């Protein structure tokens, strides 16, 4: 089995990090290899590696160039990245309430226009999705999901917004993401490998649930999987 795994691409991210890239695309098999390499490094730490950041398709390995150089670390990572990927454990499944459009989804109309359809159609397509948490990143608690339907793929904004509100569900390229809770309390809620679906709620229900979440109550539902 090990011999059949393709070697990853090792891309320099400056003098203190290597991007170990398994795929250019969103690909659950590649993501499993990312998580397997991450676990391998946690199990058998390499001296000089300071932290790792798993993403959809690559593992970013931060290291101290005073303790280990690029070539030495690259060689070690290449070997570890081609070890067999262990079978995945059972995933947790979450259902997250969402209010679409209006002040809570300022780009919904534009998304519908760009994709030549109605806002309602965008909502039903997004709700029909069965998503997997592929990575956490960008900002505390931001979950990147895989599983966005092809018909919802759209380009990121030409000029990135300076600020988007907490709790926003967004689409960027072939990705969708959710910041499930604002503030430090909810950071640990979703983890890589978890499954996620969305349920639409109206603005009044959303406001009630938002208040409940603000006082520490869990509004996302953990489903029997």
């Amino acid at each position, binding site marked *: 089995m090990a011999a059949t795994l393709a070697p990853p691409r090792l891309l320099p991210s400056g003098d203190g990090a290597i991007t170990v890239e398994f795929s250019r695309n969103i690909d659950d098999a590649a993501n499993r290899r990312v998580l397997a390499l991450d676990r391998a490094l946690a199990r058998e730490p390499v001296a000089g590696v300071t*932290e790792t950041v798993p993403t959809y398709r690559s593992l970013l390995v931060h290291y101290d160039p*005073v303790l280990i150089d690029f070539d030495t670390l690259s060689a070690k990572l290449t070997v570890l990245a081609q070890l067999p990927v262990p079978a995945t454990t059972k995933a947790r499944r979450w259902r997250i309430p969402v209010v679409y459009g209006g002040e809570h989804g300022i780009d919904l109309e534009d998304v519908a226009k760009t994709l030549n359809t109605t806002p309602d159609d965008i909502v039903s397509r997004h709700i029909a999705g069965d998503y997997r948490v592929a990575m956490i990143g960008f900002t505390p608690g931001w979950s990147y999901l895989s599983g966005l339907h092809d018909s919802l793929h759209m380009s990121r904004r030409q000029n990135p917004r300076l600020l988007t509100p907490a709790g926003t569900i967004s689409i960027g390229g072939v990705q969708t993401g959710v910041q499930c809770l604002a503030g430090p309390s909810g950071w640990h809620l979703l983890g890589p490998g978890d499954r996620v679906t969305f349920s639409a709620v109206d603005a009044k229900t959303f406001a009630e649930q938002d208040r409940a979440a603000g006082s520490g109550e869990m509004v996302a539902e953990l489903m029997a999987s």
Partner: protein
Amino acid sequence: MSKLVISAIGPSSSVQDGGRFGAQRYGLTPSGAMDRIGLAAANCLVGNTLFTAGIEIGPFGAAFTAREGAVRVALAGAARNADIAGRAVASDTSVTLADGETLKLGFARGGSFSYLAIERGIAGEPMFGSMAVNARAGLGSPYPRPLQAGDELQVATASGATERRIDLPPPVKAPIRVVMGPQDDEFADDQKELFLDSEWKISATSDRMGYRLEGPVIKHLYGHNIVSDGTVNGSIQVPGNGAPIVLVPDRGTSGGYPKIATVISADLGRFAQISAGTGFRFQAVNMAEAQAEARKFAELLRTLPDRLHSIESFDLNIEALQDANVAGAAVSAVDARTWQVSSPADALTLD
């Protein structure tokens, strides 16, 4: 215990230390000082460990007052006019404020950020191992936000130790060095050359998250969307509008724009100090050179204490007077009306 009261302060000023590393996998941005040598030198002067939490002061004036006892501080990073009750204070020196005295600072000169270290640090509760403020995430201590006039920091009463100066290597006026990648293959050769051969300026919309660059438009080979992957301090992303953004300590831990190159770690502080509107260039170096520079930088940090000298008041005054003689516009550090402008973006262009 004494208090250091923030009597006046401009935007982009916050408590920073070495940063909050180890949890980037949860989206926890590292933050930390924009210019690590600046913070380290200030801490070294007052006998602290190099990355003890200190005050990162943005381009504008500030004033700090000692209360309930004397407070020993040191100023490093971008040079400024500084005085205590009319007595000039030089950059890269320590000084003790008697109870009730105020240290007044003018604009940053030849840089953006200065660092005020306080002997034995600032009292606070580290969050995830660091006091560094990340205003967007509501993290940091003692205030999880930029500093404001009226804030009070609990600090140690001055030890009365002899004041010191530190002789740092002279400032380097050279291109900012980069290692190409990780996504340089998303750009044609002529676009990489355009990136390396052009003069760039830091946009006024820059902040502790990213420095937006003004210059030629860099075109992508395959469009501006990649599947998000991890970022580092110094990652140079190129979004759809072709204007590169250099990610700095409050960056997102991942991003979805192609990264043409990465600023080498040894040049990050020098890059962070380039003020808005000032022209600069990039220069590509190979990995061996970048890592040799990283080792030299680590050696400079390790040997900072060897660069300390005790000072006589005579030395101090000469240096301070020389500093004062190159003063620019007359601005009162404590009268906000002379330097506060409507927004940080406007303000940066005035620097």
